[in-house]
């Protein structure tokens, strides 16, 4: 519970808890059903200068996300191409909080996303085993009315869905025998006019292989249309199951008052794969202080998977392009 929550009086808390724990007719403060979420609004491409961006609105919670790509030299195994994420909480989201609390909440949210969202992003290759695009994801929480973590993960996922990779062409000197052209990531080297430089470049071998190389450089190839990344439909989603104290009921998309009254929640990160068509769990977090019977866990995860399936199909049906 490291996000600031509104204070409620004991009778308000009791009212919310009794309403939610009714076994036959649970009621929520805005008459939604337990598994109903508030309408979600997604906008893509809100920052034209970023490589990928999105804005998510779930009721009163609003998040903007942006991705900037950086080129890194790395090999596939050393994982230097792994993305970085930073979450920023604006003071207007929690006007009553101290800045120090906000920065520790930001660190907490960034670490959750770094552990459970970032590892599922495939490497963005320029030259295999050599050059990669490293995505730097920045999320900003503009206003909060509960369900913040879901909004952040949705924002991250949508920004990656909007992300377009620039095509790269490698510019390199080709030696005398270089009728072979070296292929860059998606482009073809132009055979530059090297007449004056050929003398300065030493051939390492006399065979027809191209091994003479001068200073290798790369440039953006803006002549072709940009592509979205592969695997954007398989990025993780988060389902947060809020637990009602002293009741088997669970509900989705809590408002901040409901979160104050029912602080225990189970965060489930799911990812899907195009080959298998089944959901995989890629993160579980239980927070809030209540302890539950371990026999409930399996049922909760299955329920979460069912909900995640619906969310994923809803999101994948709405991708830009």
């Amino acid at each position, binding site marked *: 519970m490291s996000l600031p929550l509104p204070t*409620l*009086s004991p*009778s*308000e808390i*009791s009212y919310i808890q009794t309403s939610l724990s009714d076994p036959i007719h649970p009621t929520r*403060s*805005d008459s939604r059903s337990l598994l109903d979420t508030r309408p979600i609004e997604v906008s893509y491409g809100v920052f034209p200068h970023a490589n990928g961006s999105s804005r998510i609105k779930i009721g009163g919670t609003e998040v903007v996300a942006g991705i900037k790509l950086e080129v890194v030299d790395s090999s596939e195994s050393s994982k230097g191409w792994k993305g970085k994420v930073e979450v920023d909480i604006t003071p207007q989201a929690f006007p009553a909080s101290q800045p120090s609390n906000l920065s520790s909440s930001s660190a907490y949210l960034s670490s959750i996303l770094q552990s459970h969202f970032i590892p599922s992003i495939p490497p963005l290759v320029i030259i295999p085993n050599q050059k990669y695009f490293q995505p730097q994801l920045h999320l900003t929480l503009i206003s909060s009315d509960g369900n913040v973590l879901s909004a952040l993960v949705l924002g991250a996922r949508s920004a990656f869905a909007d992300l377009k990779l620039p095509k790269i062409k490698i510019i390199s000197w080709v030696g005398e025998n270089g009728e072979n052209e070296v292929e860059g990531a998606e482009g073809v080297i132009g055979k530059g006019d090297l007449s004056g430089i050929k003398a300065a470049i030493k051939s390492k071998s006399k065979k027809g292989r191209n091994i003479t190389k001068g200073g290798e450089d790369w440039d953006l190839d803006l002549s072709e249309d940009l592509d979205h990344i592969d695997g954007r439909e398989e990025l993780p989603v988060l389902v947060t199951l809020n637990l009602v104290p002293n009741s088997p009921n669970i509900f989705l998309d809590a408002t901040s008052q409901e979160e104050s009254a029912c602080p225990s929640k189970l965060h489930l990160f799911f990812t899907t794969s195009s080959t298998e068509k089944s959901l995989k769990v890629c993160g579980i977090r239980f927070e809030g202080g209540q302890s539950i019977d371990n026999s409930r866990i399996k049922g909760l995860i299955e329920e979460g998977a069912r909900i995640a399936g619906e969310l994923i199909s809803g999101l994948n049906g709405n991708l*830009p392009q």
Partner: protein
Amino acid sequence: MFSINTVPPSSTQSFSDDIPSTHRRHPAELEAMDLDEDEFGAGPSRRNIVTPGEMITSSKEYMRGHGTYVEETNVISSVTGTIERVNKLISVKPVRSKYVPEVGDLVIGRIVEVGPQRWRVDANGRQDAVLMLSSVNLPGGVQRRKIESDALKMREFLAEGDLLVAEVQAFFGDGAMSLHTRSLKYGKLRNGQLLTVPPQLIRRLKSHFHHIPPPCGPTGVDVILGLNGYVWVSNGTSQDKREGGEGFDSEGVYSDKNDDIPPEGRQAISTVSNLIKLLADQGIPLTDTLIEESYNWLNQNQLPPGPLAQPDKERMLAEVVGIEVYA
């Protein structure tokens, strides 16, 4: 379960083609001429709405009031709002501002701090309000006198986080409100939920305790419209219970225990809350008759339970209030 909508990004960049040519001129150039008496009068005036920095008049005849300042010989508005003129006094009434309390206002507040012989209350104003121990009714009825040990037991009456309804009694020198709950209809709130709306939408009326009768819930729904923008929607009670008739429990005024409310009652409370939020989002001033009419409209149209869908919302606003909402 999920309703996901893709919305095109709204552009906050303005392009020079959009701005009409008059706006591109320097404000000093634009004629802020000497306005004669009728300019701000009762009839339709040419310039009624001003924004910060906009010159109202350059006349030396006028005195400046609230919401304006003087620069050289010009009276310039400092807030967004409408111009008001009283004889030679020009002021600008802001469209949106923090709640401005008056003596006698009914407000809903939340206890922030318990201090010596007083409580500090957040009432959505510029400063926290103060509720003195001597201004509350102690359990046992109106006749009960304060004893020494009461000052040590303040948290038994009102602790941090509690909600109460009170009336503004006076102001301190620094402008902080002093509240009192010296009536049987004021005191701690229970059996319901709190909403926040802009304070400007609550009119000053004779009574702020409204009761929407059944069929809205099995016992009706009570709505308390606090002038500070806090609205309390709760389970309906009878007039007697509320104001000290036979059903009134004088010992239990400070109890935190809610009554047993059936699910239909809770549904009614949630529905009324949704209606109030909807009306407030459109900037419509709230009155009890409006809320009751909206609820009756819902009943007549027999909408499915749950939150209102967007087309239903627009229809309700058009038929009950008479405003057109364009998405």
